[in-house]
């Protein structure tokens, strides 16, 4: 079997001041930025890059579709906190990246995408495989560059990594024409950058912080809404300190899962169109929301005019544009979550909200997330619970989108920091396998389980070849219901059960996995779940388990489209 990249040829002397080609300069810059792996597919417009990369100690992982490269870079970035890098050639290679780039953009993930472009004299002439990728990706990147002179390359790469990883992180794309890759110039990696228009605010404003502390002191029914920003800034301990000191219940957004230990007595689930009743009820009754590193996404709020009607709002975020964008805010604090929480924790007093916490606990008892344990039917929720049981909560879970994602959020108990990599803003089907692959490459010692639906899994199924060739032992659980399940659920509840376009046939996933060279299992009964999960984990390589789950199981509770969070629909009482 082919190996994707020869063994690294020892440390490269940094030949600063020597004339290098654009391609070599790029590789030198990537080394300086500490890049250890690139996900990509070569093409005519990137061949000089590959020619140069051959000599550098950077691993190249050949994916099977560029969308997979972008998701893998994204998964790598989320798992490690370091920027993920992907390569694609001009034209179709570049356009194939776009779903992955948009996904990274909406989820603030530091991805650096590098594309080849036709030679500068051909730009604008509709040359073979020419697309205006900087134009195409302008609204889905934090910033992007078309490098037209080799002299600009090193400063651009330096800036690109800086922008991708600082402030509110996000994807940055660098488009490099073929002739810029081959042109030569003196190389020296710039020490600093000059970006007069870019100065992220890191420290919160002291006056605002004191105001926030005063509101917290007065509140009787406070709730913390913790988002992705807590994870990005690594503020786990600070969030916990705030919650415990102020005795404040914590609810996490979907992307905020694992920012706060879910077994904690103050942890109360996720407010979402589809999720826990008690979390939504708590938000609805609260008199103070402390929103931390989250952006009041419509999936989290339902109809904003009816969102948290009784509450004053403190909003902490590093991106000033998020504050006041979706809901009105009483105390805005712009800054890095960790810094702000450190200051805020000094200002607040020890408090007790015993009655309020008990009240939410009563709601939790009233509307529990339970599953039917008596039934012989193989329920998807049961599968997720068992994954939790077998992994003892020690796996990183990477989900796809659809019902599978909601069950993975509801029925796995996330207790450690960053043990969940769900996708949020874009909800791109096909995310889980390539993102799990990227996460595994970044954290080889971590056990990674992808949880996908049979629909989403088929959207990037080709990456099975990548995980086999590059020996990336991810584990995948397919919750196979023979439907685009979430679509079917909506059709059932809001569109008169007209199941057009949602019934889905698929291949025998276990045999497909084996055909690719991975281990494949099928599970159709409850008894098989646990032993098969164990087998899949013991297998020394990528393993896929195809769970034939109850076909028409629904996710409850859910908020109907356009409704307020409090109008959610409950499942049949079991």
């Amino acid at each position: 079997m082919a190996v994707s990249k020869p063994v690294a040829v020892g440390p490269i002397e940094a030949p600063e001041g020597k004339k290098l080609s654009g391609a070599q300069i790029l590789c030198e810059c990537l080394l300086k930025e500490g890049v250890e792996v690139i996900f990509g597919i070569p093409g005519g417009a990137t061949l000089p890059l590959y020619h140069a990369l051959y000599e550098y100690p950077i691993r190249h992982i050949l994916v099977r579709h560029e969308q997979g490269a972008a998701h893998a870079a994204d998964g790598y970035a989320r798992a490690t906190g370091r920027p993920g890098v992907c390569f694609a050639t001009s034209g179709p290679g570049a356009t194939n990246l776009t779903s992955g780039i948009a996904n990274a953009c909406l989820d603030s993930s530091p991805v650096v995408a590098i594309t080849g472009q036709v030679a500068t004299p051909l730009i604008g002439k509709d040359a073979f495989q020419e697309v205006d990728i900087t134009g195409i990706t302008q609204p889905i990147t934090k910033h992007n560059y078309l490098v037209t002179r080799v002299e600009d390359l090193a400063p651009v790469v330096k800036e690109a990594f800086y922008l991708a990883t600082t402030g509110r992180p996000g994807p940055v794309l660098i488009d490099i024409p073929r002739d810029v890759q081959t042109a030569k110039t003196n190389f020296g990696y710039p020490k600093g950058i000059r970006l007069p228009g870019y100065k992220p605010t890191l420290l919160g404003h002291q006056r605002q912080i004191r105001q926030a502390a005063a509101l917290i002191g007065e509140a009787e029914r406070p709730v913390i809404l913790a988002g992705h920003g807590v994870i990005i800034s690594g503020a786990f301990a600070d969030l916990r300190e705030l919650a415990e000191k102020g005795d404040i219940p914590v609810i996490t957004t979907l992307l905020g899962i694992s920012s706060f230990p879910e077994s904690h007595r103050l942890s109360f689930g996720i407010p979402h169109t589809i999720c826990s009743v008690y979390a939504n009820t708590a938000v609805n009754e609260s008199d103070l929301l402390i929103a931390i590193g989250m952006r009041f996404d419509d999936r989290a709020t339902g109809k904003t005019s009816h969102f948290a009607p009784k509450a004053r709002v403190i909003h902490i975020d590093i991106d000033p544009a998020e504050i006041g964008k979706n809901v009105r805010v009483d105390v805005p604090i712009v800054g890095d979550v960790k810094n702000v929480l450190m200051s805020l924790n000094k200002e607040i007093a020890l408090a007790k909200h015993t009655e309020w916490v008990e009240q939410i606990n009563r709601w939790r008892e009233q509307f529990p997330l339970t599953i039917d344990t008596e039934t012989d039917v193989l329920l998807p929720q049961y599968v997720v619970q068992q994954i939790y049981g077998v992994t003892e909560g020690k796996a990183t879970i990477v989900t796809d989108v659809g019902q599978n994602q909601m069950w993975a959020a509801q029925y796995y108990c996330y207790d450690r920091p960053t043990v969940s990599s769900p996708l949020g803003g874009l909800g791109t089907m096909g995310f889980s396998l390539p993102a799990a692959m990227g996460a595994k490459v970044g954290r080889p010692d971590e056990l990674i389980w992808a949880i996908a639906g049979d629909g989403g899994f088929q959207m990037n199924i080709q990456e099975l070849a990548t995980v086999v060739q590059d020996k990336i032992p991810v584990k995948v659980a397919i919750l196979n219901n023979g439907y685009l399940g979430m679509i079917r659920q909506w059709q059932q509840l809001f569109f008169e059960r007209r199941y057009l376009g949602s019934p889905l046939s698929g291949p025998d996933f276990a045999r497909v996995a084996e055909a690719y060279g991975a281990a494949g299992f099928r599970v159709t009964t409850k008894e098989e779940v646990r032993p098969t999960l164990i087998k899949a984990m013991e297998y020394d390589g990528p393993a896929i388990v195809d769970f034939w789950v109850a076909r028409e199981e629904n996710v409850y509770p859910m908020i109907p489209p356009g409704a307020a969070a409090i109008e959610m629909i409950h499942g049949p009482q079991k």
Partner: protein
Amino acid sequence: MKHTVVALMEDRPGVLNRAVSLFRRRGFNIESLTVGHTEVPRVSRMTVVVEGTANIVEQVAKQLYKIVDVIKVSDVTQDPTVVRELALIKVSTTTATRAEVMQIVDIYRAKIVDVAPDSLIVEVTGPEEKVDSLVSLLRRYGIKEMVRTGRVAMVRGAAKAATTIEAKE
């Protein structure tokens, strides 16, 4: 209410494109937009007239700040400013109407910059209301072609654009 927002930006490729597509994507109601060089090399100045509430203007500013090359955004609506627009108007004339048109142009302290047998080109500078009222007077003679630059604005006195919108607080 109409707001005049002034943004200073690094003159780098794509920055105007970014600003314009941001207005389109976020659905901001832009009435006019002008861009040009400033006294500082490599810094451009954009003047946008945007219709909306104070909240909307705040969002415009914050979203503009997200563009890496945008250095400073100010809302100069409440400041004492000099506001100007320039228009070129090609008016149909006959021997009978030419004198009349020239008289109107005179009253508005506008200029005739081109004369042809059946038309004149009028150049006018001033606040939009002045341009609007001249245009409406000339309309009855027949406007064959017109171009307006949109508003540019500068704060009076020593201060530079005074009310910077602090997206970076």
